[in-house]
């Protein structure tokens, strides 16, 4: 034990010495205070200091770090902007935290091809701002877009409020450059609409830093729609709002965004910023239609008719861009607004099939009473991605544990309804247990096998994203699988 400890200490020293040789002084941090800002990502309940933090500003430095880590058998955890909500960028105590924030150059903006080639540390907003003067935009727009990095967006396959119409990150990137666990370059796609071989570009989206370090991304930019307007509707019953959502989609309308809030959230937002939301409503829908003038007009009319038929208690169409922006502002401020209701809140992230919205919200309300914890809801209704926010006070003994219990029950509910335990925030360290309820042991083994194909020694972000089988066994028989029966007909094959 002592010998082991001292050998790891001396290996740590060796690592720091060698890193200092390949990196400029300001790119290597190993004092505790300097490393503090990197001890957690957006999921602040989990914190840990790494052995050291490196902040390379060239791809060659990243490569050199990876080569050294291979030689010294050291773990590497990649970090973008650290806004992840599942602990994906949580450091490893004996590993290097590889921060990519300095790789923040937009390498090329090809207006003609509507492609941009960027380094991974470029922020989502910086990319949009660079595209805007050319009448273009980058579609995936997570609420964290001011800070989060494009590299992180790819690693989490992030969505945003507009992904119902414009897709997730995977639908909007055309090529990736990856450094593998040995520091060697892999080009996944080079800009054409598809690539030879397996679709590794898609596989890398949402891979949470487990398969390689993304060092360059080619994204597709879209022409900014000529016109876009928002419609705001209040409903007396959550069920009516849920049915209105289904009706809109069923009618063949694909809104640019379709968001829902329950009463708790509406009131929190109004108290926070007076967005003009109907505080007496049980639920609110925010629907954005964009496109050419003609499309937007006919779309808005159609949606308004549907909302009326579903007994909307109030209905307002933004007259211009400024009013649309005000309507959105309330939605965008929902998290901070809810944050004022209680000392702490816990944000969940499950997806369910849209037609189960009403039933699932009711069940969440029941669970909320059962666990005596307040839950407010604000979510991407158009794609069934729920974000129940559980309010609590970390100072009260035992409360966090109850929150986690409740969270687990809600995610199991999502799986049982045919959905998933994470729509956009990723598994990280946070959802390792719920993964056991969504995947069978064979499926988990398959995921581990894929990881091994990329990273046989398991040096990249170990212990994240896919739970070890052992962990699931210890949790015991949680495999829910949407209540589906295995295929009886399979025997024929």
């Amino acid at each position: 034990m002592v010998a082991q400890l001292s050998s790891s200490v001396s290996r740590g020293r060796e690592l720091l010495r060698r890193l200092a040789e390949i990196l400029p002084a300001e790119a290597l941090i190993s004092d505790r205070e300097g490393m503090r800002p990197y001890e957690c990502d957006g999921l602040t309940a989990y914190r840990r200091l790494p052995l050291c933090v490196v902040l390379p500003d060239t791809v060659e430095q990243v490569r050199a770090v990876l080569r050294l880590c291979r030689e010294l058998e050291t773990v590497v955890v990649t970090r973008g902007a650290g806004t992840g909500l599942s602990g994906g960028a949580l450091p490893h105590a004996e590993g290097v935290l590889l921060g990519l924030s300095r790789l923040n150059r937009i390498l090329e903006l090809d207006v003609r091809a509507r492609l941009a080639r960027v380094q991974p540390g470029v922020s989502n907003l910086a990319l949009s701002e660079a595209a805007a003067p050319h009448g273009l935009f980058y579609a995936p727009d997570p609420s964290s877009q001011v800070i989060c990095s494009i590299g992180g967006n790819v690693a989490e396959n992030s969505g945003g409020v507009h992904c119902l119409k414009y897709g997730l990150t995977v639908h909007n990137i055309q090529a990736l450059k990856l450094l593998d666990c040995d520091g060697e370059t892999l080009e996944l796609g080079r800009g054409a609409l598809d690539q030879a071989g397996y679709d590794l570009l898609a596989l890398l989206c949402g891979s949470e830093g487990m398969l390689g370090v993304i060092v360059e991304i080619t994204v597709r930019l879209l022409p900014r729609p000529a016109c876009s307007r928002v419609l705001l509707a209040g409903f007396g019953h959550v069920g009516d709002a849920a049915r209105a959502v289904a009706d809109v989609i069923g009618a063949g309308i694909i809104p640019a965004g379709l968001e829902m809030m329950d009463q708790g959230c509406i009131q929190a937002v109004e108290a926070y910023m007076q967005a003009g939301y109907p505080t007496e409503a049980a639920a609110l829908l925010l629907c954005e239609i964009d496109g050419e003038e003609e499309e937007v007009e006919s779309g808005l009319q159609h949606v308004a008719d549907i909302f009326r038929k579903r007994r909307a208690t109030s209905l307002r169409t933004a007259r211009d861009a400024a009013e649309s922006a005000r309507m959105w502002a309330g939605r965008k401020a929902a998290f901070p607004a809810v944050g004022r209701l209680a000392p702490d809140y816990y944000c969940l992230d499950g997806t369910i099939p849209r037609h189960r919205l009403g039933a699932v919200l009711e069940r969440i309300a029941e669970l909320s009473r059962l666990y005596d914890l307040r839950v407010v809801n604000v979510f991407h209704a158009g794609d069934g991605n729920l974000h129940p926010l559980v309010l609590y006070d970390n100072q009260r003994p035992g409360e966090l544990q109850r929150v986690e219990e409740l969270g687990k029950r809600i995610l199991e509910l999502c799986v049982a309804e045919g959905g998933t335990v994470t729509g956009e925030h990723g598994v990280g360290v946070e959802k390792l247990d719920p993964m056991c309820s969504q995947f069978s042991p064979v499926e988990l083994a398959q995921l581990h096998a894929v990881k091994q194909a990329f990273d046989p020694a398991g040096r990249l972000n170990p212990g994240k994203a896919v739970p070890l089988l052992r962990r699931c066994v210890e949790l015991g028989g949680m495999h829910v699988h949407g209540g589906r029966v295995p295929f009886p007909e399979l025997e024929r094959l």
Partner: protein
Amino acid sequence: MQLREACASGRAVRIEGGGSKSFYGRQTRGEALRVGSYQGIVSYRPEELVVVARAGTSLAELEQVLADKGQMLAFEPPHFGPGATLGGTVACGLSGPRRPYAGACRDFVLGVHCLNGRGEELRCGGQVLKNVAGYDLSRLLTGSLGTLGVLLELSIRVLPVPEMEVSLRRPARPPQALELLRTWEARGAPLSAAVIDGEYLNVRLSGVARLVDSVATRLGLERHPDGLRYWSELREQRLPFFAGEQALWRLAVPPGTPFLSPPGKCLLDWGGSQYWIRSAVTPRVLRALAEKEHGHATLFRGGNARGELFHPLPSRLAALHSRIKDAFDGQRILNRGAMYPGL
């Protein structure tokens, strides 16, 4: 069950759906594993924009069921024969004329239920658009030509059929046609397909009627004599361009690539980023041309089914493909060699 036996004995299998795309890809040996009879729509709720169907389900039937509800497979998959199945479509990962404007086959695959080469049942993805639990194996399997798993059931995102579609054209040489397209795309014209055939720029507009009407007038194009049929003929490779026995190449290049004037006859689909080429030049010439333009070249029809049909991978990427194959099918019994030799 046949696959389990094959796994136990390590015997190779050749997965067969409807046989409509058997021309595509390299020759594989082994006992036929027929999945074409594994049919049926498992669930379809139009308001979810998702259909779940078994792999052997006829593509034509599926499309009819969707059309009855005013919906469609937005990647407009080619059938290449009446026997086309959904499983074969996803395994080949081919997308039709709508691809550059609506997305590719893999963009619409939400979930896959399959058997890997060990005969183990895997469910990847699901029925919801947003899902980041576990690696995205569904999209990895899409287009893998059956080399990683036997597809059993697929959930596919569907989209509403546009209110109106029109087929238009105007005479234009390829470079000029590409320029015109760029301008229209940048202005947000509701394009849903665009082909440059040397003589004409052919386009399809889709969307709400008022918009399509007004844009069609604004662009000043003539009605296409073949109407919307032109696009299904193109998709199914039944246009005169595709007739005859000469080898057919497919070059995929980045959008915005200037006109390439490749050797032989060519037809540019996907708004200029997919070239169909009829040419007898040696593969080397087209591969070099594709590579220079950051694209790749596939010998789509009429090649030697034992040779290299798909664009060769750089060695490190090839080694990774080999390890991925082993992760799913260590004995290499599934459609071995369908994509690359040995894989």
